[in-house]
């Protein structure tokens, strides 16, 4: 699937920028360290938006398109920020046969986003993941560190409301 590019405005802080600049300064002149810089940048910002990729491109003297090409090739890089609550729906085999696709669809429908995206208020992000080792609870999803097992699509609005109002 094509990577989703977030439309949420970039809210990077001066502190984050300083950290990224320090990483770039260490790796400058060695273009083979591009991946490393991108990993660090994702660690700092949680994702790799346009503004961050431009900083990397200019700092590493690599065309922006090359940075973007790498960021869309590897699954580990995200172009969307993580929400305050990151919902991760397991699409591993056991969960899938127990109907977790319907869970994912319902979550996305409720939040008005696609998998890989973040809601415009920055509150929820949704992603599909592979087996998290809780097959006995299938279908399963997590909200940050909390695990929800044996859920049905009907229960989703209630669970989300808990976080919205919390």
């Amino acid at each position, binding site marked *: 699937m094509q990577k989703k590019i977030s439309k949420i405005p970039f809210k990077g802080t001066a502190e984050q920028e300083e950290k990224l600049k320090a990483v770039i300064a260490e790796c400058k002149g060695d273009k083979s360290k591009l991946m490393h810089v991108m990993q660090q940048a994702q660690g700092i910002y949680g994702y790799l938006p346009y503004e961050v990729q431009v900083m990397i491109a200019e700092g590493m003297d690599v065309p922006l398109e*090359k940075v*973007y090409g790498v960021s869309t090739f590897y699954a580990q890089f995200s172009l969307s920020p993580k929400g305050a609550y990151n919902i991760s729906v397991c699409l591993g085999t056991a969960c899938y046969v127990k109907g977790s696709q319907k869970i994912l669809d319902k979550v996305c429908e409720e939040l008005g986003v696609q998998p890989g995206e973040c809601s415009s208020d920055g509150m929820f992000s949704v992603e599909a993941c592979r087996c998290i080792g809780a097959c006995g609870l299938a279908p399963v999803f997590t909200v940050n560190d909390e695990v929800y097992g044996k859920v049905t699509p009907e229960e989703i609005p209630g669970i989300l409301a808990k976080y919205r109002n919390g």
Partner: protein
Amino acid sequence: MSNVNVKVNGIEVSVPAGSTVLQAARAAGVEIPTLCYLKEINEIGACRICVAEVKGARSLVASCVYPVNEGMEISTNTPKVIESRKTTLELLLSNHKKECLSCVRSGNCELQKLCTDYGIEDAHKYSGAMTHYAIDRSASHMYRDNEKCILCRRCVAACSNVQAVSVIGANDRGFDTHISSAFEKPLAETSCVSCGQCIVACPTGALSERDDTAKVFEALNDPTKHVVVQTAPSIRVALGEEFGCEMGSIVTGKMVAALRRLGFDKVFDTNFSADLTIMEEANEFIQRYTKKENLPIITSCSPGWIKYCEYYFPEMIPNLSTCKSPQGMFGSVAKTYYAQKMGIDPKDIYVVAIMPCTAKKFEAERLDHTAVKGLADIDAVLTTRELARMIKKEGILFNLLPDDTFDAPFGLGSGAGTIFGATGGVMEAALRTAYETLTKENLDDLHIDFNDVRGTEGVKEATYNIAGNEIHVAVASGLANAEKVLKMVKNGEKHYDFIEIMACPGGCVNGGGQPIQPASVRNNVDIRAVRAAALYRDDKSLPVRKSHENPDIKQIYAEYLEKPGSHIAHEILHTGYIARKKY
């Protein structure tokens, strides 16, 4: 280097060690089809069309990148090879927008030709998911239709390796892989320089120039418009290819005849305004050289180069010559001097430019320094390919046309003007005029050729002693070469007084708007050299070979422009540039 002996389809052949299977086959007189391979530009062995069987090898090998070794036995036409190529083609077609009847590249598409050659009977053999993309028509010079893209990456290699621009690349992965710009921005919002080298590299109809022929037909059919046309130097040595002429044919006379039959009111020669450019630029060089100001001066004829400078080397903008390009100068004098002379309101004059170049379409849309306020200097720019399309559409039998000649008062061009189309040509033309201006001596036929700046090498250097001055010059074509030269100038490694830069490798003869030659030709013939040789033949055959001796040039200065660098020349023939941000 030592040679190795190999057998291709049973034919024994000896080739230099390190040759590829493809090269060995060629040496044995065997052609292997290619699709992603483009000599010296894209050598990635990705498309699997050029597969061949090598005795003892585990699987079929990609002949474009597989090196030969002693005693190797290669088969290029076994049933296994043919079946593999056929399957590759069928799979490519399974995700290809098959609108061949209306495709701009129909008849000149490398994919289409291979499908015919390999007898693909069912273009829909594998029906399944297809990728869907909107056509990007944002840029003023071209469009991209990813649904016709076969992901060969020839365009990507042209953009990054040849031009050092890198605004397009392969993004996402697997079935979703597609060619686009960072963050899926429309091409117009990137630092694309509009050179069109991606278009001439594309084997299919995925990339093409913006077609402006309809706009020109409309003007030709409008009785209130006085429609004039100018043809760039390099069109006359390339247009013939569109009509089956041998590469390097000079078709000036037929081209003029065809334009007249298309209905243009006047057919003029950009060689004239190339001479005008030399008058202004040689003068500008002498001024700057004398004052030691803003040196090296860098030529400004190539709009792809200008845009590159604005994006990638904005700090070098003061070094650019302020001269408009020959295209721009032509438009400027057409809407001022010519309008007055003919008693026509400039608003009713419609100027069409036939150019080897897609960036000229972008240049024509720069409206900051036009000769007549509120009017564009140039109303429409057509590439060589679009002109050929118009001629074919009108049923003009190009090859049967009698030779015709350009109209006055912009019909005479010197040999110096004609060589503008080849890398080093502007430099040579300027040197011819600067030499005579500075020394007050005549360059005779034995000394008129400046051979050091000729040839297809990416970077050329020379030093000339003119009137006691050591003048250091450099010529670069292809923007990756330009980048090298500019970096050396910036870090003080090299000192030059005068630099010519052309965006396209080999200059305008190899421009992004020129007839598209398939990889099967480009891999074996240096089209830059063949077309350029025709321009130098043309130069040699012309009665006037120096810009300042062109009678039409003398006349326009006497009647209107006064002298090079005059106030009025500055008003209408010179321009300005803007620093642009890459991101």
